[in-house]
């Protein structure tokens, strides 16, 4: 086999060489051509290593708001416009050395940086996929309709006049090309990287991936990289055709805003002007100075319209977040940091270590698309010194704002904030949670992030001091989440505030039960009387009442609200049964005998009066130094034994997640998560399932209701399950 493998490429090369004089290769991209061996690829890598460095003037091509008006070319070193192209641009332009290349009607055109047309070639009915310049040649790839549309053209032209040196048209999908010296690197069909001879189009060598995707090739310094979902450095090891056998950088599978892929699809052309694919993506740059495959700053920059998140490429740890005042039209990674250009023409250099702007330049033009060409060593002189900001501060900014488009980035920032330890992070979460107009989805993310934090509870308690006030413009604080968080933190200072919210009519009814549960878990004796008052006030609060001005009696509460209220009364009854003194426990007799009390309330009162009240655990909760309860007179509830923790709920629910996700299939709008609330009992039975968004209630609720939770001491408790919907 081995001799044949060595001979066959030579034979094919000889066949290809026969057509060299025509300038048109018929052998390239043949499916029958085998992958090259290590010797051949090592020789290719050596040629790249020896090639003269490309000349990359530091410019940015800024497409006009209406791409039909053309583009402007700005020198980022001076900030001056050096040229304007007055032509209707039909594809994202490519800056290729001292040329700007873009598709216009029926042709691919190259202009000088001053805006003068240099040459044009027919577009052959295809989009411009990419262009690469080296020396006095330019390699163009046409196609761009995706990896499944198998028609493409590779054309190598002279940079000066556009005369064709080689042209290959094939029935394959072609990806982003790279030209280095006499070698043109062209990904194709998602699986291959062919190296063509720029002088005649002959295929010189080929890498075939057997277990990964190849969509782009890119030159960086003295190396060529390729890949799609991972980043490979071309070398002898590439001959293995496997990820395991080839040094590569494998991006972490972290959930990033907008689920941005490691690289844009190299087989699909980007449009001129605003293209959402450019606004939600990852930016990175290989660092050829390091051995193996590494990224500059070991950082991946996740872009989301206006936001940038800098993540450690190895660990996924978030380093900093940056929020631009305007949408980002283009970015480029350089050794000095990340250069960003916004759609108002603001250019900045963000330091790689902390994200602070070190250089700012107001460009004379702005536009929705900025294509930057910057050498890795581009380093403008610092001209600004923003004050340092902590990661918490930058995440707080990223999680805020009223731009509805940014919700995924806000959610990401909030999740990362919740993962940070310390009081400042807690305070930041509380600050987000108490913002007016916070979306329900973000509220759920932040609120759940707050539960379980034990440091920084002062901020939570301060938030509880606020009560709704229409005139003063004070919104209802997120009492339910705060109650759960403070109970989990065993923060007894919250008791009086929680009681006060229990009796505040502005407190949402679905927050009442969490308040009652929190009061039980906090175990402060002072809350028993309040809970008894609550039961007195609302145990029979059903039916209609005549309006003040007269007329027919009206029912002022819908079924959902009544259900939430009943659940809260039930929880209060449970608490009184466990720890109430005789007068409070006597109240339960009246409740169970009341003819109009809701059935769930009466049943709860009967249950706790007929049977023994739920037993207190043998030991007090860790860290709570309270003495064991003297029967019915103290409030050391030891509630943790009576509830299922989030992990237990998630563990049971996750088994049904695929069925739940099936409910989202074909939905016109897919939420990032489902919030499922329900009741459960000590036997693990689930009931009263409520699903948000409500559009999925009918499908999801029966699935969740069928889940068998672990058994617990709970008589009746409320549970929440957050179901992420990302695949």
């Amino acid at each position, binding site marked *: 086999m081995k001799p044949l493998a060595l001979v066959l490429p030579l034979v094919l090369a000889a066949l290809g060489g026969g057509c060299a004089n025509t300038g048109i290769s018929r052998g390239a991209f043949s499916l029958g051509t085998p992958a090259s061996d290590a010797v051949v690829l090592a020789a290719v890598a050596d040629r790249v290593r020896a090639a003269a460095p490309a000349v990359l003037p530091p410019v940015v091509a800024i497409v006009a708001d209406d791409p039909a008006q053309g583009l402007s070319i700005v020198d980022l070193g001076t900030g001056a416009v050096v040229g304007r192209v007055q032509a209707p641009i039909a594809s994202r332009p490519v800056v290729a050395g001292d040329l700007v290349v873009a598709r216009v009607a029926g042709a691919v055109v190259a202009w000088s940086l001053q805006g003068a047309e240099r040459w044009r070639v027919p577009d052959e009915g295809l989009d411009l996929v990419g262009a690469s310049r080296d020396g006095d040649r330019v390699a163009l790839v046409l196609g761009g309709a995706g990896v499944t549309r198998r028609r493409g053209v590779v054309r190598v032209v002279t940079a000066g006049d556009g005369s064709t040196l080689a042209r290959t048209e094939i029935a394959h999908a072609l990806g982003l090309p790279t030209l280095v010296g006499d070698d043109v690197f062209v990904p194709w069909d998602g699986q291959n990287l062919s190296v063509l001879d720029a002088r005649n189009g002959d295929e010189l060598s080929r890498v075939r991936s057997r277990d990964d995707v190849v969509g782009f090739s890119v030159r960086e310094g003295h190396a060529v990289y390729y890949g799609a979902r991972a980043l490979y450095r071309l070398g002898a090891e590439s001959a293995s055709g496997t990820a395991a056998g080839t040094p590569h950088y494998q991006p972490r599978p972290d959930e990033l805003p907008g689920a941005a892929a490691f690289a844009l699809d190299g087989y699909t052309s980007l449009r001129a002007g605003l293209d959402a694919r450019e606004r939600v993506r990852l930016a990175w740059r290989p660092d050829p100075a390091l051995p193996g495959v590494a990224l500059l700053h070991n950082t991946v920059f996740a872009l989301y319209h206006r936001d940038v998140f800098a993540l450690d490429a190895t660990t996924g740890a978030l380093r900093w977040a940056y929020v631009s005042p305007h949408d980002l039209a283009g970015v480029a990674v350089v050794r000095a940091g990340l250069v960003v250009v916004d759609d108002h023409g603001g250019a900045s250099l963000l330091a790689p270590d902390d994200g602070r702007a070190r250089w700012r330049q107001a460009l004379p033009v702005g536009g929705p698309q900025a294509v930057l060409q910057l050498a890795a060593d581009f380093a403008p002189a610092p001209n600004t010194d923003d004050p340092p900001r902590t990661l918490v501060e930058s995440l707080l900014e990223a999680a805020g704002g009223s731009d509805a488009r940014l919700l995924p980035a806000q959610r990401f920032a909030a999740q990362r904030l919740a993962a940070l330890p310390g009081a400042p992070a807690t305070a930041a979460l509380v600050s987000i949670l108490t913002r007016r107009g916070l979306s329900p989805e973000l509220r759920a993310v932040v609120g759940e992030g707050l539960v379980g934090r034990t440091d920084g509870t002062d901020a939570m308690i301060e938030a509880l001091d606020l009560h709704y006030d229409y005139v003063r413009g004070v919104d209802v604080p997120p009492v339910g989440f705060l109650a759960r968080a403070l109970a989990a933190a065993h923060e007894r200072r919250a008791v009086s505030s929680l009681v006060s919210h229990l009796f505040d009519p502005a407190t949402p009814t679905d927050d009442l039960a969490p308040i009652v549960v929190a009061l039980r878990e906090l175990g402060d004796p002072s809350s028993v009387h309040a809970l*008894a008052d609550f039961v007195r006030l609302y145990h029979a609060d059903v039916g209609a009442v005549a309006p003040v001005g007269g007329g027919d009696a009206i029912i002022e509460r819908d079924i959902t609200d009544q259900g939430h209220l009943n659940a809260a009364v039930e929880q209060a009854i449970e608490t009184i049964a466990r720890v109430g003194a005789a007068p409070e426990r006597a109240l339960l007799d009246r409740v169970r*005998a*009341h003819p109009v009390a809701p059935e769930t309330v009466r049943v709860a009162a009967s249950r706790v009066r007929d049977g023994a009240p739920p037993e207190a655990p043998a030991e007090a909760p860790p860290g709570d130094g309270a003495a064991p309860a003297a029967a019915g007179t103290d409030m050391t509830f030891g509630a943790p034994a009576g509830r299922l923790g989030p992990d237990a709920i998630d563990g049971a629910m996750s088994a049904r997640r695929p069925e739940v996700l099936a409910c989202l299939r074909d939905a016109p709008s897919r939420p990032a998560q489902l919030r499922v609330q329900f009741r459960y009992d000590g036997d693990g039975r689930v009931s009263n399932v409520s699903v948000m968004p409500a559009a999925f209630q009918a499908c999801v609720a029966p699935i969740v209701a069928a889940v068998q939770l672990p058994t617990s001491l709970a008589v009746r408790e409320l549970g929440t399950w957050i179901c992420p919907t990302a695949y």
Partner: protein
Amino acid sequence: MRPSRTTLVLGVALAGVTGSASAQPRRPVVTTVAMVHPTAEAPPGWDLSRADDVLARIGRAATGDPRRGALEISSALLAGVEPHVAAAGLDSLGVLARPESADAILRFLDHRRVSLRRRALIAAARLHTPAMLRAIDARLGDSDPEVRAEAARTLADVADPTSVRALWAAFEHEAGSGLGSEGTALLQESARALGARGSEQDVDRLLTYLRRAPFGALARAFEASLRRPELPDPVKLRVVQAIAGIATPQARELLTRLVDEHRGRSTPAIDAARSAVSRIQ
């Protein structure tokens, strides 16, 4: 049954408020009375699970000894009754206007039902204690627009100067809220309360909102001001002149009502109104 709580209440009787020429202000006479608080248990003999029976007992309590009636009804409400029974109880407490009702009224000012909060406000207006006034003030910020408006109406009835600041806060919050020429119910009621109970300075301040706040709400305020016998004529004249100055059909309509209401009388304000009505087309 838990024993009733008893507290001492300072009863302050202010004497000599009618224009005494004495240089020495007279000291208030302070008396102490023992006040019994309601319990949170059913009064003896009341079965709170039988709504009809409780309604009948509330009716009897409301027409018997006021102090005892207030205690019994308040105890029943605090012990927990059905909402329509609570509504009848609050109506009765408003009629009885006894300080023993305060605990129950304060509790129902925070009830989750709008109709019961509104009834509690009406009952609260009859008590006129500082604590009750603060509680009514707080309802100006209620989450329900009907309750907010009821609170402003209540404060207009109570006529306590300590509430003026809260009324202004409500008025100014609503002044820019739009809703056509009438404004929100809270704006209308807070404006009316300020016009009816505010000082001369308050009336002058209301005038500054002409053309900046819905005229319908301001018209209610100025009508209330112009009906106040104790408001000096120069203030009323300023009100009429300011309304005449905007010369809109709504302004003419308001001034016409004023003229019709005081047909045959002559004061500087009414005369100015007559003149303006004839002038505004």
